[in-house]
Each structure stands twice: as structure tokens, then as C-alpha cells.
């Protein structure tokens, strides 16, 4: 099977999975006990507005007769597939759902980009370092901190970090007698709130945007960082004890060549699924991290939509996330075959 046929097969297999996942979401939203209209409009609702909303959501026909659940389901699915998500009812009432999602997405993408990058740049080198020096003090230290780092709840870490950064001035004055301010460090930024991503071409604005997102990205990347560290360590340990490394050593190859050419490349293979599973952590974790750091991104939007009963918006967001995660999964499988041609297409 060629790479392209494999790719297309994966794509076709992903469709029913997303379809079924969205059916589950439909069951919870439409068959669950929550009335979307009451949730959106409150107790004293305007009957005319409520009627209009019910019609727009597809729960009743314009003449007031209820739409059968089966028809609701078909309409729900067709709307998702054609990306006609309708309008919001609670958050920014009247705005188009798709416009809202597109407006909020950049912050989440910016956050996700940096959290993946930080996790990769810190986690993998630390893991490789520990793996090259097994059972030494640095190894124990790195392994132990990786384990603990991973067990930390994101939301707690976010609270502690954000509150410390907000109060760096007072705290540093109390501790060392000098006022050090995180907010004034390099460029003036806030800790809580949404960074301005409008002008990333300007170096100062870029620096400010990076500095702004950094604490949240560190928190969001923390769990993956721990994972990458541990897996990187084991992978290096395994490859360094393998026969071909032994052979290379017997051949008289220098340590540097062995490590860089033979060990690291192969040790990267088991890290591929971790990087893609980061996508899950990113989307799940962004709900809490964006909530704590008051970042106006998709995670916070999802939380608000779900809590305030804007179920049309919530359904659309979950659909977008499901698609995104499937794409990441497929890319991961492709990446596998590119990095390691030994992995066949047939097995998966």
C-alpha cells in the first residue's frame, strides 16, 4: 500500500468516529434534561423570543409543533458537516458561532504552539540527558521531578504561578529587599488577561505576546513535559544498550557520532505518540488554564458555553475539537511512517 492510499484509508476511517462522537454529544445536548431555551433566556423569558430561539435551534416548527428527534438529529448533523453552526444565544447573543470561534481561535493556537514548543525544548533534552547518565544524581533529580511535575493538576499550578507573577514586586521585596516585577520585565505586560496578537510583525509586540503567553504555556505544557522526559530517558537507555550501538562502538566510532547519529534519531520514535497525545492535553487543559489566566480563547469559550447553556455553540466547539484531534492523529501516523520506514502500513 502506498503512503497516499494509507492516508486516505485513515481519513475515511476517521469520519465515522467523529460522526459517532457527535451523535453522543447530540444525545447529551438534546435528549438530556437541560432545556437550552430556559438555560439561555432564564426564568422570565420573552415568549416570542423563546419561540424564535426554539425554531432556530430546530426544536419546533414555525407553527409550534415539535420536530421529531430523528429530524432534529439529521438537521444537527447536516449543520455540522456544512459548517452552518447558526448563531449564539448567550455569549455575544446574535453573533455567528463560526465567527466567534474564528475570533477566539488565535489565542488558543498561540497558547498551544508555545506550550508544545516549551514542552519539547525542555522535556526531550532533559530526558535525553538523564538517559545518557543513568542512575546518576542528575538522572534521579530529573526523573523524580518529571514524575511529580506530571502529577500536578494544571489548574492548581496555574493559580500558584499566576498569583506569584502578579505579586512578584511585593514578594521579591519581602524576600530579598529588591523590587523585581514580572510585569515590567523586558516589556510591559499583564499576567491575567488576553494578549494582543494583532501586530506580531513588530518585534516589541511579538516579544510582549510571547512573554504574556509564557506562564500559561508552561502550565499547559507541564504534564507533557514530564511525559516526554520520562519516555525520552527510557528510549535513550534502550537504544544505547542495543546491538547496533554496540557494533558502532566496536567499529571505533566516536561517542559523539554514536549519540547524535544512532541514538538520538531512534530515540525520537517512541516520542511521536506523546507529541500527538499532547493535543488532547492541550484542548482539555486549555479550558482550565484559560479560565485561570483569563485568556479569551476557545477553552474558556467552551467552558462558558457549556456552563451558561449555549448548547449550539458548545456542540460546534466540540465538533471543531473532534476534527482537529482526528487530523492530529492522522498526521501522527503519517509522521511515524516518515521517521521510521520499518513501521508498515498494514499493521495499523
Amino acid at each position: 500500500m502506498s503512503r497516499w492510499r494509507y492516508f486516505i484509508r485513515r481519513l475515511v476511517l476517521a469520519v465515522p468516529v467523529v460522526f459517532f462522537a457527535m451523535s453522543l454529544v447530540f444525545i447529551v445536548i438534546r435528549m438530556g434534561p437541560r432545556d437550552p431555551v430556559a438555560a439561555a433566556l432564564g426564568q422570565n423569558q420573552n415568549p416570542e423570543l423563546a419561540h424564535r430561539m426554539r425554531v432556530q435551534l430546530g426544536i419546533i416548527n414555525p407553527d409550534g409543533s415539535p420536530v421529531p428527534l430523528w429530524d432534529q438529529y439529521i438537521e444537527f448533523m447536516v449543520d455540522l458537516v456544512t459548517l452552518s453552526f447558526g448563531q449564539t444565544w448567550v455569549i455575544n447573543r446574535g453573533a455567528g458561532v463560526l465567527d466567534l470561534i474564528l475570533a477566539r481561535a488565535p489565542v488558543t493556537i498561540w497558547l498551544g504552539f508555545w506550550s508544545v514548543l516549551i514542552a519539547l525544548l525542555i522535556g526531550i533534552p532533559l530526558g535525553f540527558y538523564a538517559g545518557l547518565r543513568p542512575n546518576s544524581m542528575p538522572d534521579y533529580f530529573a526523573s523524580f521531578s518529571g514524575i511529580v511535575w506530571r502529577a500536578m493538576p494544571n489548574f492548581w499550578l496555574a493559580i500558584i504561578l499566576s498569583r506569584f507573577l502578579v505579586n512578584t514586586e511585593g514578594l521579591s521585596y519581602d524576600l530579598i529587599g529588591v523590587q523585581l516585577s514580572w510585569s515590567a520585565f523586558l516589556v510591559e505586560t499583564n499576567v491575567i488577561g488576553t494578549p494582543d496578537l494583532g501586530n506580531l510583525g513588530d518585534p516589541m509586540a511579538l516579544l510582549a505576546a510571547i512573554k504574556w503567553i509564557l506562564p500559561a504555556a508552561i502550565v499547559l505544557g507541564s504534564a507533557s513535559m514530564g511525559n516526554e522526559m520520562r519516555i525520552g530517558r527510557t528510549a535513550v537507555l534502550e537504544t544505547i544498550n542495543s546491538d547496533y550501538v554496540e557494533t558502532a562502538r566496536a567499529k571505533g566510532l566516536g561517542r559523539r557520532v554514536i549519540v547524535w547519529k544512532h541514538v538520538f534519531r531512534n530515540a525520537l520514535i517512541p516520542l511521536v505518540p506523546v507529541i500527538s497525545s499532547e493535543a488532547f492535553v492541550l484542548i482539555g487543559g486549555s479550558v482550565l488554564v484559560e479560565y485561570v489566566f483569563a485568556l479569551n480563547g476557545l477553552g474558556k469559550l467552551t467552558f462558558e458555553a457549556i456552563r451558561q447553556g449555549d448548547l449550539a455553540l458548545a456542540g460546534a466547539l466540540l465538533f471543531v475539537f473532534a476534527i482537529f484531534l482526528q487530523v492530529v492523529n492522522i498526521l501522527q501516523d503519517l509522521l511515524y511512517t516518515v521517521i521510521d520506514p520499518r513501521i508498515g502500513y498494514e499493521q495499523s
Partner: protein
Amino acid sequence: MSETTDVLPFTQRLRSNPRPALLWVGVLLVLLALEAGAIASVAVTIVSGLAGAVASGAAAVVGGPVVPSIGGAIDAALTSAGQVANGLPTLLSRDAIPNQGYQTPDGAWHGTFLGLEPKHAWLLRVVVVYAYMFGLLWWCWRGYRLYVRHYRFADWTPRDDVVDRLRTHRWGQFGLVVVLLFVGMALFAPAISPMTAEQNLYNAAQHDIEYYDADSESVEKMSAFDANLASASRGAGSVNVNPWQYDDFGRFHPFGTMTNPGQDLFTFMAYGARVSLAIGLIAIGVSIVMAAGLSMLTAYYKGVIDLAVVFVSDSIQSLPGILLLLLVSATFQNHWFGQIYNGGLLLALTFGVVYWPGLWRAVRGPALQVAEQEWVDAAKSYGQRSATTMRKHMLPYTVSYLLIYGSMSLGGVIIGVSGLSFLGLGINPPIPEWGRAIATGQDYVTTPAWHISLLPGLLIVIVVTGFNALGDGIRDAMDPESEGEDADAGATAAGGGA
């Protein structure tokens, strides 16, 4: 068959050498008698809970006046049984070692155990509780060794190797100790918390405390609600009861107090541990049962069933679990089903549904391997029923994997529940939950009331690390081949989910 004839049944082996067993049972009975009151009251509580559930279920189905009267009779009987149970002596109760009292100006404490300082009285009680718990467990462990030495027919079984490996696995033992401390905290919450839950969490206004008033130079009574409020940690201002301090009313707070209405943080955490543990166990129980059942079916029949389960589990896993949990708990927020156990049952079941695909994936491989074995074929051709084959010849090989992944996922459930409660969607107040403690303290992290958010978070980290370590330990003990310690890191609970 001729071999089994010279194997004596267990009862006969016991009868031929009863001394060690009798000694062991005697000591066990003494240990249990110390806690007779608590065991009896737990039994009564469970029975009355079941009876209440049955009665309300029957009332819903049948209706009519008969059921309530029967329910009333059962209720009365159980109440009196409960009173009898409360009358039995209990070593590990707050009444045996009271730690609440007041200090007169001469420095003497009144109302505490032997006139000890409340701090020491409380510490003593905690030490006694844990000593009892570990003692009991050690005795059970001794009982197992005794059985191996004197009564087991086989000299060696594979399980001996597992136990031996676990005995040298320090990391796993660390996890076991942490998990036991956590479980002890949950089980003995009424005994190890410095204050009663009623006085502290649920019904403070109905309870009075005694304290020595320096102004009037006499012992005064005060409602616990006012006392709590007066000793709440609010960050700014003069009143902050930090960990390991007394408040103005002579009450000792090992973890300090929370912000308004000023609960004792340790009491909150101890009862919150109960909630976390209960939800975690139910959730993991549900997902283990589902994963075990489905893995048997898919491995045995393969084909369409396997494909269907792959499809369903992929679909559930195609969205991050925390989003599905958010959606479900928000949808059921005002529904009666979301109110059972203050939202705990709904959460636990949802976690079960979200977690089984991961567990099933973990045991699918081993289950498929076992299904290929000759003995399964033999059992089939022998005419054994499929269900029996799965249960007796396949399931035992997957149990170890289920245990490992179950232990590792439990930490994830604890993090998830606290994350949802932090967002205000998990367990409803006033039932304590660790995530809510973090939420109430989030504005005080850099103030003198830093402990409110910091300590619960640290406890979560420690407990989750403990469950992960225990899972590592069980895995290494069960399957020494799996030295690749991180091949299954995906199962390990990580904070990234919440």
C-alpha cells in the same frame, strides 16, 4: 484424579494443625473488638442506606400508605440498632481522645484527653488511628504468610514471586504507603479530623463550643458558626490561622483555617478525601467491569464485535474526557440524577464511561493473546460454555493489567473531579471537595493565608504520585518482562487532563 486424593481439603489441613490459625484469629478478634462500635455503626449505616433506597424505590413503584409504614418500622429498628452501635466501645473515636477544650490562665487545659494540649491530643489520636490501621493490615499480611507456611498445599505458586518482587520494590512500596495514608484519611475522617464535620462543615450554627474568655475571666459558650467566622483566614488583616496554629478559641488547626465561613482545612480535606476516594473507586470499578467484559467478548468472538467496540471506544476517546465531563455535569446540574450523592454518582459514572476505552485498549492485546492459547481451544472443543471459558480460562490473565491501569487511572479521576469542582461543576457545596478548597483560596496565594490553595494542591500531587507509583510497583511485580517502564505512560494519571 489419583493425585488429588492425597490432597486434604483446606478444612482438614486446618483441623490437623489448628494452633497457628486459632492464635491468629484470636488476635484479629481482639483488634476488631477495639473498633466494635465503629464496625457496628458502619454496618448499620450501610443497611439503613440500603433500606432507605429500597423503601424509596418501592414507594416510587408501588406508592400507597403501606410502604411508608414498613419503612418507618425498619427505620425505627435501625435507629435503635444505631444507638446500640454507638454505645459500643470504640478505640478510635474523638470521644476516646478528645482534643477540644479550653485553656485557663494557669495554663491547664480542660476537656482534652488527660489535660493534654489540643495539638498533642489530636496528634496522639492520629498516631493511634494510623497505628491501628497499619497494625491491622500487618496482621492480615501475617495471616497470609501463616496460611502459606502452614496450610497451603502448594509449596510455591507464581503469586509468591509477585509478592517477592513487590517486597523489594521501594518505589511501589512508597506508593502503597501513600495510598494507605490517603485511604486511612478517608475511612477514619471522623476520627482524625480535629473537629466534627457537623460543627465545621454542615451545621455549625447548631453547635456550641466552650472557650475561656480573658475579659470576663470565665468559660463562655459560643456558637461554632461565630467561632469559625471569627477564626477564618482572610489573607489581609489580623486574623489568619495558619497551619499548625491555634485560633482564639483554643482550637487547633493542623492545616489552618479556610476563608469565610472559616472551616478547619484539615477536617475539610479529610472529608473531601472520602468524596474523592468514593468517586474514584466507583468510576474505576465501572470502567474495569466494562473493560473486562468487553475485552473478553472481543477477544473470544473477534470480528464484528471487536470492530464495533474499537469504533465506540475510538469515538469516546476522540474528545478530551474533561470536555465530555463538563458537558454532562452541566447538563444534569439541576436534574434529580445530578443530585444523588451531591453530584458524585453522576460524576463517577461519567468518569467510568470516559475511562473504559483506555482500560479496554490496555487489556485488548493480552486478552487476544490468551484467546489464541491452546487451552482455550481445548475448553471449546470439550464443550465448555463460552461464558465459563472466558471467566475461568481467559479473565485471570487480564486481571493484572486491569489492576495496573486501574490504579494509574484512579489518580486521573481524583485530578478530574477536583478540576471540575474547581470550576464549580463537580460536587455541590457544602460537601467538601479538594478542588473547591483550591478555588476558595485562589485569591490568597500570595497573602498570609497562602495555605488554603497550596496545601490541597500539594496533597493532590502526593496522592496522585502515590497511585502512579503503586501502579508501577504492581506492574513490575506482575510482569518483570515489562522493564520498559514508560511504554504505557499514557495510562499514568497526569495533571494535564485538568
